[in-house]
């Protein structure tokens, strides 16, 4: 029968878990299930979600072990042609469990999210898009993007540089208006965990192994500047093309330009020049220019923490970022190979995960609660019927608690 301690059939359990993973508070999931004719309390939804989330984490860990022993089979029938692994991180709030009702010892914890996608794209003999996308040349839009990623984006652009999106997009060069076909996303799966990078790498590798990513013809690993991304890439995706996320590069360029420029029009002009150079693979030119600016405005004093808006700090950070990632910024070549140049898929996946796990009044028990909800959310956001497959194979319990068997709960 594949029954366990809960008095629900396996198909109803799957519905309960899916509702818990998709809908906000457990009370909302309980209400949605009530509308669907399933009577289950919010507390019970929470208990079941936690239980299944932990089971999914255990299943994932077993796969990691199998991969290490080289016994993890490939799950897909056809080897994909183009694949990308994008890694990013988010934050969720946690609390100490076992302290009674309420939130005790609250902590913000980083979760790690990997987006594994198969793509459809073509190899081109020439760069299919030699000029930057029009959207990266719209001041308001760029400022909003930088604000989202870095938390602040200088002052609101004024005058010419502060023109609205519509007028700016209309005045952008004609070449930038045509957007050549970007790599098209086919199937996305997701790995999410609170684990540190040393443990997270093998989890992503196991998922990639199951999807036969290592045999794909064209492979990319996209990440921002976080050191652990490149440690994962070096450890488990060495044959993948390592690509530094263009959007993070853009943020550093924008903020450095904001720091060194004297007015909005000069700042915007510096930014667009640098962006165009980086887009076209002329990173060295930008490095030289930035080095010139740095020597003019001065370097950050040793051992002194400068204000985050200090031009010396902004220029130094941009220089450091570009130097560290220069080898991963050959964007024209990546475009010719039909590979992604930004981690926008991972960014959007993190947003989708956050929509369930992150809210001002939402705290998850450390560590099981956090890990469990991430497994459930990752399962419902993966386009591989992960939950249905899991429930089709989930065994029941030979033994059950007496009260469960007697239906007294």
């Amino acid at each position, binding site marked *: *029968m*594949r*029954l*366990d*301690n809960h*008095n*629900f*059939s396996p*198909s*109803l359990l799957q519905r309960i878990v899916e509702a818990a993973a998709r809908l906000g508070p457990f009370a909302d999931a309980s209400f949605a299930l009530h509308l669907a*004719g*399933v*009577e*289950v309390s919010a507390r019970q939804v929470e208990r079941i979600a936690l239980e299944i989330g932990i089971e999914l984490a255990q299943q994932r860990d077993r796969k990691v072990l199998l991969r290490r022993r080289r016994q993890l089979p490939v799950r897909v029938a056809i080897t994909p042609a183009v694949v990308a692994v994008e890694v990013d991180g988010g934050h969720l709030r946690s609390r100490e469990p076992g302290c009674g009702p309420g939130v005790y010892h609250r902590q913000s914890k980083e979760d790690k999210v990997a987006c594994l996608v198969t793509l459809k794209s073509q190899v081109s003999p020439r760069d299919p898009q030699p000029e930057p996308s029009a959207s990266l040349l719209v001041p308001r839009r760029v400022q909003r993007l930088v604000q989202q990623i870095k938390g602040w984006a200088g002052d609101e652009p004024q005058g010419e540089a502060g023109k609205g999106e519509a007028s700016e997009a209309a005045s952008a060069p004609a070449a930038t208006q045509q957007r050549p076909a970007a790599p098209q996303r086919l199937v996305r799966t997701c790995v999410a965990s609170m684990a540190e990078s040393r443990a997270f790498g093998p989890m992503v590798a196991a998922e990639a192994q199951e999807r036969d990513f290592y045999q794909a013809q064209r492979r990319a690993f996209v990440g921002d500047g976080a050191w652990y991304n490149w440690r994962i890439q070096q450890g488990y995706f060495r044959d993948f093309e390592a690509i530094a996320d263009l959007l993070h590069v853009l943020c550093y360029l924008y903020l450095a330009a904001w720091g060194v420029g004297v007015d909005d029009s000069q700042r915007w002009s510096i930014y667009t020049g640098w962006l165009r150079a980086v887009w076209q693979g002329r990173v060295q030119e930008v490095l030289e220019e930035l080095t010139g600016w740095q020597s003019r405005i001065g370097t950050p004093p040793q051992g002194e923490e400068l204000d985050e808006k200090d031009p010396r700090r902004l220029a130094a950070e941009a220089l450091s970022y570009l130097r560290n990632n220069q080898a991963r910024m050959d964007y024209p070549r990546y475009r010719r190979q039909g590979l992604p140049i930004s981690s926008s898929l991972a960014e959007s996946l993190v947003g989708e995960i956050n929509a369930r796990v992150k809210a001002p009044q939402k705290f998850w028990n450390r560590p099981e609660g956090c890990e469990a909800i991430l497994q459930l959310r990752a399962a419902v956001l993966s386009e591989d019927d992960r939950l249905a497959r899991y429930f089709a194979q989930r*065994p*029941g*319990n*030979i*033994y*059950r608690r*007496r009260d469960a*068997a*007697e*239906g007294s709960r």
Partner: protein
Amino acid sequence: MPQRKITAVKLREIHELAAGWGKIVARRAFGDDGPDLGVDLTAMEQVAATAANGLNQSTLEILLQQQARCLGAQQPCPDCRRLCLVGSEDRPLAVQGGRITYHEPVGHCPDCRRDFFPPQGFLAPG
């Protein structure tokens, strides 16, 4: 034990059979002439949903009883493999479309001093 799936053809046949019973339900609910103009769609939905629930519950209860009979009077204990008598206990179970009472087969091993719930073919130690 391999889990057998019902084929799509068989499921279609069952759907047609159950659809035929709709006439019987409609006649029983509103007579040979059907509902008059005073009956709204909500009331009709209520009749249909109740009929579907009843059919659902009775089908599942019968199927589960029939399957339980296949177990025989004795089953081996999952731990010590000693043959133990199998009885049954009523257990409320939420299923798609409602709740049923499952006369769940339960064995008791006097050596291990614990109950177990066959059939074991689908099960793993919990």
